[in-house]
């Protein structure tokens, strides 16, 4: 399992990627929520970089903290949430920045799209209004220029008859088309970074394929850094250059996409990959599965968070929380085991 098979390189080689300028630098991010039952730690000492033009996939299950990391980055935490640590966008500290100042960055230089395109669009406003607003606000464009640019953007995300459809309301679009509109809005100001939180989860398979194809083309055309947050390992496999795997608020493994899929080094990553039913392959009656449930963040187990579900767990895992350690260039894991 440890050897990465030789094949056509997927994504940029790690060395080239490392030289690219950093867009986003997250260091020691902690996100906590006050709840009636006490404090919940949703993100625990998370650090990573996103570089120009690369696509970083964040995988994890519900409650892993994958969305909360980027809600913290975007300053969109719920009222009972607090984020500490450091988040630098283009070398500028943005964590704790007042909203007015932050608004000059989000929407213009970094933008986010969400799972459900219907709830992220305002049903009372035409698409045109929702698009031009962004350009007028951030770029100081006039209405007619803004509309011209918006139509171009809708063309870019392949909405047919963009000129006519820009006058329509969100409910007049299908789910896939709405997600295209959201992507168009997010890309209007040519941001350095696009955060896509489960962008295709609410869509049907054939429509998902269209959106993935679109994101793939945009990635090559626009050189925008993309952060792809999803639970779907297939989506990650197709688009990401690098992958971060999260479990119970921690990054448990990171590496280039082929390393993660062909040589997982954390038992959780390995378990996830094995438990996915496949479209091809040999007969099997029983799917390998990870026993137990994801932990309750209020009652985390002692030592390693994954320990109660881990087939490899030994005494040390009970007493000592594994720190993240480097296991190769751009490769790290939080596990006491040296190799799987």
């Amino acid at each position, binding site marked *: 399992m440890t050897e990465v098979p030789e*094949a*056509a390189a*997927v994504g940029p080689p790690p060395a080239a990627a490392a030289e690219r300028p950093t867009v986003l630098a997250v260091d020691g991010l902690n996100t906590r929520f006050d709840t009636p039952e006490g404090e919940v730690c949703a993100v625990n000492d998370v650090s990573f970089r996103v570089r120009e033009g690369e696509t970083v996939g964040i995988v994890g*299950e*519900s409650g892993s903290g994958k969305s909360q990391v980027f809600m913290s980055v975007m300053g969109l935490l719920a009222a009972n949430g607090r984020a500490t640590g450091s988040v630098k966008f283009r070398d500028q500290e943005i964590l704790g920045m007042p909203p007015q100042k932050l608004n000059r960055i989000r929407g213009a230089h970094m933008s986010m799209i969400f799972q459900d395109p219907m709830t992220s669009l305002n049903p009372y406003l035409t698409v045109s209004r929702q698009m031009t607003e962004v350009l007028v606000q951030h770029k100081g464009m006039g209405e007619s220029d803004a509309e011209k640019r918006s139509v171009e953007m809708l063309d870019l995300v392949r909405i047919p008859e963009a000129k006519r459809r820009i006058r329509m309301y969100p409910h007049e679009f*299908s789910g*896939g*088309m709405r997600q295209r509109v959201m992507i168009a809005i997010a890309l209007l100001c040519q941001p350095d970074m696009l955060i896509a939180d489960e962008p295709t989860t609410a869509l*049907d*398979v*054939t*429509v*998902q*394929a*269209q959106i*993935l*194809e679109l994101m793939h083309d945009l990635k090559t055309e626009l050189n925008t850094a993309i952060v792809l947050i999803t*639970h*779907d*390992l*297939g*989506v*990650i*496999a*197709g688009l990401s250059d690098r992958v971060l795997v999260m479990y119970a608020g921690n990054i448990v493994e990171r590496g280039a*996409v*082929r390393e993660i*899929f*062909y040589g997982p080094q954390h038992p959780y990553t390995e*378990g*996830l*990959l094995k*438990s*996915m*039913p*496949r*479209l*091809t392959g040999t*007969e*099997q*009656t*029983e*799917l*390998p*599965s*990870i*026993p137990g*449930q*994801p932990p309750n963040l209020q009652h985390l187990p002692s030592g390693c968070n994954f320990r109660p*579900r881990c087939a490899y767990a030994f005494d040390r895992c009970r007493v000592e929380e594994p720190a993240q350690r480097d296991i190769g260039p751009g490769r790290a894991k939080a596990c006491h085991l040296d190799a799987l």
Partner: protein
Amino acid sequence: MTDTALASSALDPTTTGQTAPHGAPRLSVKDLRVHFAMPKRHLFATHRDYIKAVDGISFDLHPGETLGIVGESGCGKSTLGRAILRLIPATEGKIVWLGEDLLALGKSDMRRRRQDMQIIFQDPLASLNPRMTIGDIIAEPLKTFNPGMPASEVKAKVREWMAQVGLVPDMINRYPHEFSGGQCQRIGIARAMVLNPKLVICDEPVSALDVSIQSQIINLLMKLQREFDLSLVFISHDLSVVRHISHRIMVLYLGKLVEVAERDPLYDNPRHPYTQALISAVPLPDPDAERAKQRIVLTGDLPSPVSPPSGCYFRTRCPKATDRCAMEEPPLHQVGPGHRAACHYWDTPMPAPAAE
């Protein structure tokens, strides 16, 4: 009924779960139609539109067999599942259960038959009453169908089923909100199984669950099927999950059956362009394979089910469509043993994608 004898002869105990059992069908659905009337466009309108959610679907289901039903939202897969149990009234057709047409039964007769057929739902928490303990939830079908059963026996049965589905029986007095999604789905399965049904309709039972929990529930359903010779109808939009659990698979599009086959022929050699597109659209958790594969990307969206296209419903998105497809609805062609596909051009190769 005489079904048990039949079942044991039909199902070889060494069957691993993936080869379809043969013998007389337990359930036989014939030309089932479920049409919903749309509201009149205005007060004096004489014409009403209908949504044909299920439009002329026929299939058999054998003891110990899993029939997968796949399709995208709006294809009628859930309506079909519910219509089989008469939870939604069928407009036309026959649902023959152990030789008897369910649609001809009166209310109380139907109610009695329901012991044999159960359903589990997608959202496990929403399908459990939050004010009942899980003991009461699992016991409810028992008490409904066997009002005379002594409380101690009910309790013993509930505990036995909790253990069967992988719940700790001591949790019997807890409430649904104390359980995670995967555990709630186990409760739903215990409730469905407690009457020893012969048929369970699973309507997207793992779609709301995390990947690591999904496989636990799939394994549980397959184990129960082996032990109790269950027939399963497994409705899902996830083609990988359906492949893993099903013996045979039906693909629906806008209420119509477009292709049906046993598992391997359907996935290895799909004949309908929609099935081909669906399978090629599934993102593979394998970077090299996912990036190398030729994906058939369909253009456009699902047409409105109120005014579907003429001829073949799929022609508006089909790379193979010709004039003939607009005029003539394709019949279900026999394309292989037990393999049927509703396409005029099932025999011709998919045209190469247009150059960009």
